[in-house]
């Protein structure tokens, strides 16, 4: 499958986590099925090439970004990444054998918490997803609010079960974030964003940036928690069939809890994003 979606080709995508690159090393990867070489020289300069020719390339948030076409916008600005009292770390990039769009949808889903993240983000019999609000903003982002879920261990610093509030935000087709109650603050939230690299239509690398309030936390425990949760999702994601996300509204039957996913699929259709998807009939 060749990527012909302008909105994707003219956008920035992460192709490497700096944590995985040592100086003087080369990293081979794929973006939309095209072989990309990423190298980091001894002075810390990074270059990206495709077929031996240089690509436009930037370092931001500890990741290497490139664009296959002409960038029509900047790399996403994340204000939380510039707040001094937060850790800003990569939780580790993982290759996942499914469409990146499936990963976004799974990230937006609260319904799986009690079944996939049992004892951590949910627990039977508390399986109900209460009604929440979804909107498309003027900036063409999807925001889901008033998402509440009772969680046995909501974060690395949680002491006992708490009621967690989430805000979900889809910025771009392969970029999704959540804000989540910090157990120690009433008015501030922890933040996780996924920068998903579409390796192929049915393959992706999930890069993530964690912006967690430092209080009572260590970077190691933060990474530990993120990987614990993500590795529970991974086999579920890799066993979903079909691997591409169907955009036809009749293809997979949604329930009320899927309100945000329904909008996500419609939003992808409206922007004519087909890479990693099964186009609507």
């Amino acid at each position: 499958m060749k990527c012909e979606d302008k909105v994707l080709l003219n956008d920035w995508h992460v192709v490497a986590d700096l944590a995985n690159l040592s100086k003087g090393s080369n990293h081979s990867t794929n973006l939309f099925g095209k072989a990309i070489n990423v190298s980091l020289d001894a002075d810390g300069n990074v270059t990206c090439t495709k077929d031996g020719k240089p690509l436009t390339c930037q370092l931001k948030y500890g990741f290497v970004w490139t664009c296959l076409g002409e960038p029509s916008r900047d790399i996403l600005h994340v204000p939380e990444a510039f707040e001094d009292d937060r850790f800003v770390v990569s939780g580790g990039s993982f290759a996942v054998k499914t469409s990146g769009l499936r990963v976004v949808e799974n990230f937006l889903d609260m319904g799986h918490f009690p079944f996939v993240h049992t004892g951590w983000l949910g627990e039977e019999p508390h399986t109900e997803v209460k009604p929440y609000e979804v909107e498309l903003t003027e900036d063409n982002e999807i925001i889901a609010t008033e998402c509440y879920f009772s969680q046995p261990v909501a974060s690395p610093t949680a002491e006992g079960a708490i009621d967690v509030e989430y805000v979900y935000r889809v910025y771009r087709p392969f970029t999704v974030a959540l804000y989540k109650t910090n157990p120690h603050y009433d008015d501030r939230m922890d933040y996780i964003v996924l920068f998903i690299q579409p390796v192929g239509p049915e393959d992706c690398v999930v890069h993530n940036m964690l912006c967690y309030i430092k209080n009572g936390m260590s970077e190691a425990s933060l990474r530990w928690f993120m990987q614990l949760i993500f590795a529970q999702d991974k086999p579920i994601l890799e066993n979903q069939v079909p691997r591409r996300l169907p955009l036809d509204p009749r293809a997979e039957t949604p329930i009320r809890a899927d309100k945000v996913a329904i909008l996500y699929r419609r939003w992808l259709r409206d922007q004519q994003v087909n890479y990693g998807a099964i186009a609507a009939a």
Partner: protein
Amino acid sequence: MIKLYDYELSGNCYKLRLLMSFLGLEHEAEPIDFYPGNQHKSPEFRQINPLGQLPVIDDEGLVLRDAQAILVYLASKYDTSENWYPSSDPAILGQVSQWLAFADGITTTASAARLHDAMFYTQIDVDVARAGANKLFRILDEHLYFAELDGQDWICPGDHPTIADIACFPYIMLSEEGGVSRMDYPAIRRWTDRFKRIPGFVVMSGVFPAGPAVEKEAERAA
């Protein structure tokens, strides 16, 4: 208290968490940033294990590395029933040792394929690793099939699982993450289902518990 230098996604660390849970043994975990931090290769960690590998335990000053060696140690010291490591029977002891070595082979094949596929261990020849895993799975599947014919549930003869079962379980259960399907190994699949119902069984990320409905049925049958 026993200290375990631990990494959540490591099947070898999981072996020790399993045995300690089966034995009801408390421990304290020290998380090591294996990926992407590579902390197990740091000079500080090499002071603890010069091989730069996980897991390592520290039990009141005795520092031990190697999952299989630690299984032997913990079972010998803390399992007074001698069920998990029946050291008084030479024939069983030989068989347990044989399958512990076999488990190491599963690590160098099935686990290597998983590291390649998920965590960018691109230096690994994944086709060789997968072929090696399939060869071992075939051998274990046949072994378990004939054991079942003899009325045996576990890798080594006897009424109780041994540390050989623990050593083989994790990377078999995680094999699909490295592109090794268990579809063709029905005796292995039955054995993993039995394993998940051992009292005290715990999961790790990527391993799911046996279904509660099946458990209830097993209770009724018992």
